[in-house]
């Protein structure tokens, strides 16, 4: 039920069977159907979700009703609104399932308990947050310096499986482009210009 979670955990930090059993008691298995919300804007985010199977996304919606995708989370990835999770404030984001999904959830109380009592969980969380920070910094830099073509090609290179699983308008949203602009970008790349 939490196989992918533990595989990802142990790829970073090895666990004894006793530590694994202790962590397992804090994990909640959850199934989510396609289009079902894990979190809706305005509610506090009470969980960190690890994706065992399927695909989730987080996004905000502006005043005009346009969605801006922050993150995709396929198998092996973690998704949450960390700010809301840590502060208890209402979230500005939505998280929903792009595909039917099986998740491993960690609630706030469980998270705090594990940080306090299981040092290897703290190491795992630190490595995860460091990785997420570096990825966000890289994405921000690309937003400022790279062309639309470069950013689209980087997306295809970095996330080839996601590119095959989500519709083009979601990729456009993730890259901060309109669907029409992304179509032009793809045509220019296809024609080798």
């Amino acid at each position, binding site marked *: 039920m939490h196989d992918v979670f533990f595989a990802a955990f142990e790829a970073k930090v090895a666990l004894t069977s006793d530590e694994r059993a202790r962590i397992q008691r804090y*994990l909640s298995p959850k199934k989510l159907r396609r289009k079902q919300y894990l979190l809706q804007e305005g509610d506090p985010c009470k969980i960190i979700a690890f994706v065992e199977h399927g695909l989730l996304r987080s996004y905000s919606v502006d005043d005009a009703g346009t969605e801006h995708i922050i993150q995709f989370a396929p198998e092996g990835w973690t998704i949450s609104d960390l700010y809301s999770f840590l502060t208890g404030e209402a979230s500005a984001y939505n998280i929903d399932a792009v595909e039917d999904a099986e998740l491993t*959830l960690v609630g706030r109380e*469980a998270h705090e308990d594990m940080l306090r009592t299981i040092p290897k969980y703290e190491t795992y969380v630190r490595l995860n947050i460091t990785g997420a920070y570096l990825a966000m910094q890289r994405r921000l830099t690309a937003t400022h310096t790279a062309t639309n073509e470069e950013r689209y090609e980087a997306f295809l290179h970095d996330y080839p499986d996601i590119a095959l699983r989500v519709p083009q308008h979601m990729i456009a949203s993730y890259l901060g482009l309109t669907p029409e602009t992304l179509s032009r970008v793809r045509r220019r790349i296809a024609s080798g210009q």
Partner: protein
Amino acid sequence: MVFLAATQRPALWGAGSFALQSGSSMYTKQTIAIIGAESDHGSAVAERLARGNYRLLLCAGAGGDVAALAARLASERPGADVAAVACAADASWEADVILLTVPYEAELDAAARIRRRACQKVVVSTTNPPEVPGPAGTSAAEALQRLLPDSKVVKAFNAASAVNLRTPSISGQQPDLFLAGDSSDALALVSDLIAAAGFNPVVAGPLSASGVLEQMQLLLSRLAAGGAAGWKLLRA
């Protein structure tokens, strides 16, 4: 129908220390599994909760049929999100909150079936033992918590009969419904369910108070025997 109207605020066990956490989910639709939905009590709970912003997964406790109930609830309320699920473990996997509305004798057996999928989730014990429980710690809810040590067990809905659930208000007033549990998050979630069902949620205390709630219901059931459908508790 017999009414019991409290003339003063009921004494609450440790009520001061059980302030509910604000900030429960207002927008995100919670998924509620009702295991034992084919029973009179279970179907009445399902009927009330179908009025709220919930996804309901109806599951039979032991071989009953809930497909007709799911179809009826879905047709009665446009937009109602109700589905029948054959397997209790599957329903619990998808659920955020699990209500066990099976008879007392079947509660522990049902809990054993959902144990792995109920980890860290809210599980509501709605049943009452047929006899007055023994020493402290022997209530149905506490026995359930021992069987599901990694779940957040809450005692609730045990004091509302099916008839009461179907007609909760008295002259436009909402009756009270007690709940007990050890997790403030879980109490907040179940309080939302009770409010959605048309009652005022009143936190009676930690899970150790559930024995008193079960005994109270047993007493009220005995007093109501002989034609009355049950009791409603009104705060005056």
